[in-house]
């Protein structure tokens, strides 16, 4: 059986670097700036942005 990844977390955006481990993280304190960075990353990486709460956004390629 072939095993494939359904979705891959490419990076995360957060206000605090302590919240993220083992994946590339962009630390952006301001909420509006975080949204703009996430939008740019999603367009560049052709991936979707998901909000997992606690001021953490993840960019996932499905």
């Amino acid at each position: 059986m072939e095993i494939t990844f359904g979705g891959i977390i490419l990076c995360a955006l957060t206000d605090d670097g302590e919240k993220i481990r083992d994946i590339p993280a962009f630390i952006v304190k301001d909420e509006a700036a975080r949204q703009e960075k996430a939008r740019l990353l999603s367009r560049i990486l052709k991936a979707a942005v998901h909000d997992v709460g606690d001021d953490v956004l993840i960019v996932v390629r499905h």
Partner: protein
Amino acid sequence: MPHGCSIGLGLAMGIMARVLLLRSDYRQYPTYPHGYASHLFLGIIAALVGAVSVPALMAQEWTAVTFFVIVAQQFREIRSMERDSLEALEETQLVARGSDYIESIARVFEARYYIVIFVAASASYGAERGGALMGIALGVLALIGSTLVVKTEPLARSVEVIPAPLSFHGPDLYVGDIFIMNVGLESSRESIAEHGIGAILIPKTETARDTLANLGQRQAILHDAAGILGAKKDMDTPEFTPMATRHIQTGRVGVFMVPEEGDVQLLVNVIKRTPVLESARGRSLYGQSP
């Protein structure tokens, strides 16, 4: 030429059957004009096989009959030809057909050639037995009977489709009460709230519930909907990809899309017309698992 009338009539009826079955509908397949050309040509061959096989059988020309049976088997290749062709196009589709839909279309194409052979053989047999009029009558009967047997069932027969509003609970997108996905970007949420439309599919029976559970069936619905209404998305905006998510407790399905044409009633009509795929047809009431 002793069997000229029956072979000629069978050939003509077979070609007519292929032309009638070769309609390009809202799914835009086959593509005009090259798809038409190749299928018309293969249709002529199929009609000839059907038309000649009956007189050959009646004249006890077993070599000819065997030869035509071998030729008829070549039409099995039609299915793989259509499958390969559609699979090659999948990568460049914004909303893919999905393998179930492709298989279903390929099966229909294959079956249509067998119908052409059957119609041509029936007309040929009628002409041999009772003249041209009998041939035409049998050919028309064969065509009507065959098309009724292979007619695809629209989803509306077993599923109720109703428009439903989109709403956000925080970053989570819902169609009615059915969760669709988590949208992290504020700008995308605003866009979806402004341009997005949704519908809920309610199965009328347990069998329909199984049909809606099939991922291929749901992908076919999304492909047809995006084909008619257009999808306001590109490769770098995956959050605008049409989605169909299942409510596990009830078996209902929520459909979400951001269309070019924001007509929710049109979306409902397209979903109702989507064919029930053979591979997705629910069979929960027809048999028991061992």
